[in-house]
């Protein structure tokens, strides 16, 4: 079982604690996804002078469960011209990669429970940030494969747009966190959080990087105003047009979990992770996560969708130069000071 211990070998905790933590984190993230859909609909509803879902259970709190039951019970139809293996593989790839990345995000200081050292993360990988971007890029394959394999023009166009947009904005996204990496002198998220606990939150010196990260992150998760991959007025639903039932549910899930992971990453990199006064670490982490997620929902209600040329121009001509200049300036300042 040595391969399982890799993450926690340095802290000397037994492998089964990592396993328990992994199970807990995955379930919490899934729970978070389910209720994020509800909260998003509720918040968007209130912003549009509606109530949002309020019929299933008290205040609509059982709505995600009803949605899940509906999705699972639906027939898993299959387009006649679809490529079997890839069509089925697509959503699983997307969901798998989405759920993997949360493992390296630290959410607490670590505790001693029953004589065992329990760290506040599932895995501390020295290249955690790279790992997140690498797995995130793998997740794009899920979208592309799914759109291509379903043999539909809308799905194909949607997956092409997803591909172009995600590749374009990933550059800015990766460059925007470079400043943080330079300041913390580490790619490990645990070290970055520790550096912020000792020093100032990086949102203050890296405010430009934070802005770029949020904007590029919105584009990475294909949410409004950058939701061109699934522009419903033009493309029906984008790459998952031909998907239904729980396969569509997996795609939807992977999108929302990517959003949660991205928000978690924003909290970890810029907002000091779990650090905060009075309250315990995980609580602070969740509070900050909720704030970032609210900003994403807020942005979705407020801003209209960009045109495709605007999207590309914004990504390549505004965000990328800004992120580059920000990274270079940070490097110069860190070396000089």
């Amino acid at each position, binding site marked *: 079982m040595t391969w399982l211990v890799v993450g926690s070998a340095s802290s000397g905790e037994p492998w089964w604690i990592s396993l328990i933590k992994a199970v807990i984190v995955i379930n919490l993230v899934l729970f978070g996804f389910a209720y994020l859909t509800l909260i998003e609909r509720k*918040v968007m*509803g*209130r*912003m*549009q*002078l*509606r*109530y949002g879902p309020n019929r299933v259970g008290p205040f609509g709190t059982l709505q995600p469960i009803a949605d899940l039951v509906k999705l699972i019970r639906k027939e898993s139809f299959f387009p006649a011209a679809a490529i079997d293996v890839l069509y089925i593989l697509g959503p699983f790839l997307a969901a798998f990669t989405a759920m993997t990345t949360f493992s390296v995000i630290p959410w607490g200081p670590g505790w001693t429970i029953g004589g065992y050292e329990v760290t506040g993360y599932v895995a501390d990988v020295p290249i955690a940030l790279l790992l997140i971007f690498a797995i995130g890029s793998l997740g794009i394959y899920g979208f592309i494969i799914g759109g291509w394999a379903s043999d539909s023009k809308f799905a194909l166009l949607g997956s092409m747009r997803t591909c172009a947009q995600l590749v374009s904005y990933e550059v800015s996204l990766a460059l925007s966190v470079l400043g943080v990496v330079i300041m913390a002198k580490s790619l490990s998220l645990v070290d970055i959080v520790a550096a912020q606990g000792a020093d100032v939150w990086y949102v203050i010196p890296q405010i430009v990087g934070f802005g770029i990260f949020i904007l590029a992150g919105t584009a990475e998760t294909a949410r409004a105003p950058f939701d061109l991959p699934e522009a419903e007025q033009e493309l029906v639903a984008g790459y998952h047009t031909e998907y239904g039932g729980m396969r569509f549910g997996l795609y939807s899930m992977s999108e929302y979990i990517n959003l949660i992971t991205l928000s978690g990453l924003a909290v970890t990199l810029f907002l000091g992770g779990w650090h905060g006064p009075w309250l315990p670490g995980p609580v602070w982490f969740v509070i900050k996560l909720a704030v970032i997620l609210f900003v994403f929902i*807020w*942005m979705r*209600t*407020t*801003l209209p969708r960009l045109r495709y040329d605007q999207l590309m121009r*914004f990504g390549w001509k505004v965000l990328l130069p800004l992120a580059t200049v920000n990274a270079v300036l940070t490097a110069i300042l860190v070396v000089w000071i």
Partner: protein
Amino acid sequence: MQPFGTLKGFGVTFKHIFKQPITQQYPEYKRPVYPRFRGRHRLHRHANGLEKCVGCSLCAAACPSDCIRVVAAENTPEHRVSAGERYARIYEINLSRCIFCGYCELACPFDAITLGNEFELSEYSRDDLIYTKDMLLAEPIKRIPVQDADLYDTPIPAYKSSS
């Protein structure tokens, strides 16, 4: 890009969270219908209990979606149902076809059929949507609130009366 305009937009959406939603929560709150709302049909009786309908089938002739079926029969001194010579032995309206245009109401020479206020007509079966004479003669089970008649049911349109 107009950064300040965008920020203003964010302000507007945030402000609206704290406003009362304008949604009418339908099954709990039933919005009053207008006085001339055309809902489910009703058949009427005279004050002495005789049916107003004489089975002339003019409503069926006027119906553009052909959803009314009338089979008339002769009144006899022993069996008198309506005030006229004949009465409607069968009077059925297929509400799954009805378009609620109100032509039957206009065509009727005895004001025997009118369109009521009821609009909650969902059924689990299509057969249940065929309303028989007994159902149409009966009082509606559910009362639908009606808007203030003086305010809305003006015989002269407001734009003509005010000029």
